[in-house]
């Protein structure tokens, strides 16, 4: 089975590649296509041998994309469901992680949080994420008020800031999200750091929201009377 997948024959995988469908939907919409090309070309433009891209400009273009393109396009690209690694890799590549996400060194998560809090917009987006994706045992979905959309929106709102989250690998069975940081060197703040990091890596609300969106089961979960 592994050999079939690693062959990545486009003809066999394209049938159920929701991430490819999402890219098609975006390309056929002039606004989505323009802003997607905007961030992709900025984020993949090489500056010099030592500098693969301008992260600052890449982040700005990503923020414009997620701010100005409706969620019906951006959510589909970010949270498409996958049955094979080719699809999951495409999903991971959505934000051009080599420029917007990965870095030579891995900063401490609390330092990264500090950098985010120094910027008023990043600070408020992070607060939104903590509010809307806070795992709770009081609801069926683990999300506050069973509101998946609010959690997904807050997640997308972090992209293009210091705390940009992404899929850590192209796994199809388990979805793991994290900002580019670790809790090494936290000293006596280790517990605080792990708690902060777990809001991304081990968050049942965020995971359920992403899975429900991918499966199309996120509708009518919150009955309104």
């Amino acid at each position, binding site marked *: 089975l592994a050999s079939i997948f690693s062959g*990545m024959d*486009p003809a066999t995988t*394209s049938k159920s*590649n929701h991430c*490819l469908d999402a*890219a*098609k939907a975006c*390309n*056929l919409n002039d606004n989505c*296509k*323009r802003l*997607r*090309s905007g961030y*992709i*070309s900025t*984020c*993949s433009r090489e500056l010099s041998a030592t500098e693969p891209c301008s992260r600052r400009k890449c982040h700005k273009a990503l923020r414009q994309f997620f701010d100005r393109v409706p969620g019906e396009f951006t959510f589909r690209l970010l949270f498409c469901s996958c049955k094979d690694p080719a699809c999951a*890799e*495409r999903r991971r*590549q959505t934000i*051009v992680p080599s420029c917007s996400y990965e870095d030579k060194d891995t900063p401490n998560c609390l330092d990264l949080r500090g950098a985010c809090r120094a910027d008023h917009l990043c600070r408020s987006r992070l607060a939104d994420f903590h509010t809307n994706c806070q795992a709770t045992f009081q609801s069926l979905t683990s999300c506050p008020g069973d509101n998946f959309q609010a959690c997904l929106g807050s997640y997308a709102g972090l992209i293009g800031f210091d705390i940009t989250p992404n899929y850590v690998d192209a796994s199809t069975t388990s979805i793991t999200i994290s900002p580019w940081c670790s809790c090494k060197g936290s000293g006596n703040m280790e517990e605080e750091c792990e708690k902060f990091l777990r809001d991304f890596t081990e968050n049942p609300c965020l995971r359920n929201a992403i899975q429900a969106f991918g499966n199309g089961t996120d509708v009518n979960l919150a009955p309104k009377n």
Partner: protein
Amino acid sequence: SRRKRARARHKPCELRELEVSVSELGLGYESDETVLFRYCSGTCEAAVRSYDLSLKSMRSRRKIRKEKIRARPCCRPLAYDDDVSFLDAYNRYYTVNELSAKECGCV
């Protein structure tokens, strides 16, 4: 019907569009992503200028003989669409410019 087909062939110059995969563009990229390819199609009979008529006359009077000339307007893009980006089968991003027409005219 036959008349309808004849009329379709003689539509004036205008923008048309096709949904195609990036691989089908023939630019050497391997990608299953679908893009909108807009192109110019149609006749330019209504756009014949004094220039074209005179050029034809010069040719028939053999004042112009060996040169390659075109005494008819041609339906071509006047402007091109914005860049289009895609992820290829090897997970590399590419951006292509001037891929698609934005506006057509008889030039």
